[in-house]
């Protein structure tokens, strides 16, 4: 029964509609719960992940390499120097509103910084932290 809401949300997202950060977080949380019974997203775990030094990439060992120590801040690309708008919903309301865009950047940045694909649970935690951080 559990995969059904996830499938519904995924289909809704594929139609290209704008979503709320809560809805996007819920897509990942539902997927994570399907694999790990009782999973609930944790902003605290999301923050720990944001600050973790993965060390996979010399130029960008952690999320903070480009996004600074606070997701509320404007970041700067560690290689190109380009300004990056804040990750936190509190200071950038456009974040976590387009599921395809969110999935694209988790895909690219997890591979590049973490060195592997992120799990649905890590994505749900990350989204929770970005929604809640003030």
């Amino acid at each position: 029964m559990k995969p059904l809401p996830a499938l519904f949300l995924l289909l809704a997202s594929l139609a290209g509609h704008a979503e709320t950060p809560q809805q996007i977080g819920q897509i990942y949380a539902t997927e994570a719960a399907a694999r790990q019974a009782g999973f609930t997203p944790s902003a605290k775990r999301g923050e720990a992940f944001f600050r973790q030094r993965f060390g996979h990439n010399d130029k960008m060992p952690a999320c903070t390499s480009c996004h600074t120590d606070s997701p509320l801040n404007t970041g700067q690309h560690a290689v190109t120097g380009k300004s990056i708008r804040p990750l936190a919903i509190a200071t950038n309301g456009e974040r976590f509103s387009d599921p395809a865009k969110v999935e694209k950047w988790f895909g690219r940045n997890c591979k590049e910084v973490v060195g592997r694909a992120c799990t649905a649970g890590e994505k749900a935690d990350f989204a929770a932290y970005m929604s809640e951080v003030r």
Partner: protein
Amino acid sequence: MKLVALPLLLGIALPALADRLPLPADTPASYTAECGSCHLAYPPALLAAGDWQRLMAGLNEHFGTDAAVDGKKGAEIKTFLERHAGNAAKLGSAGEPPRISTTARFVRKHREVPTQLWRDPRVKSAANCEACHRGAGDGRYSEHDSALPELKR
């Protein structure tokens, strides 16, 4: 009077025109979204068609990053870049892998920029046009509007 004024006006207007490199009106949204997230969505005229082709063919290893774009978007971006590419003879070689900042045109235009300024934390890289050309996002590259006080003139 008019005969004298015209070349004079052209002399003033032409350098200003050369500083204007806005993105073409038919720039696809995929170009600004896919290419303009990590660096400025560069004006296609800054590289020759052959260089854009080689660059697009190697996106999975794009200056140390996997910047691969899916098929349909990639084809759209490649066609757009080829259509508006610059003149290879005027730009000069972009090297391998092709870099805008390697072309003779870029080097000549930036010959007055001190070497240490390229490494400045505010700049980080020659890829960061907006560090100095604050209007670059709108296609304005005038040297008279530098964001860095050291380059004010």
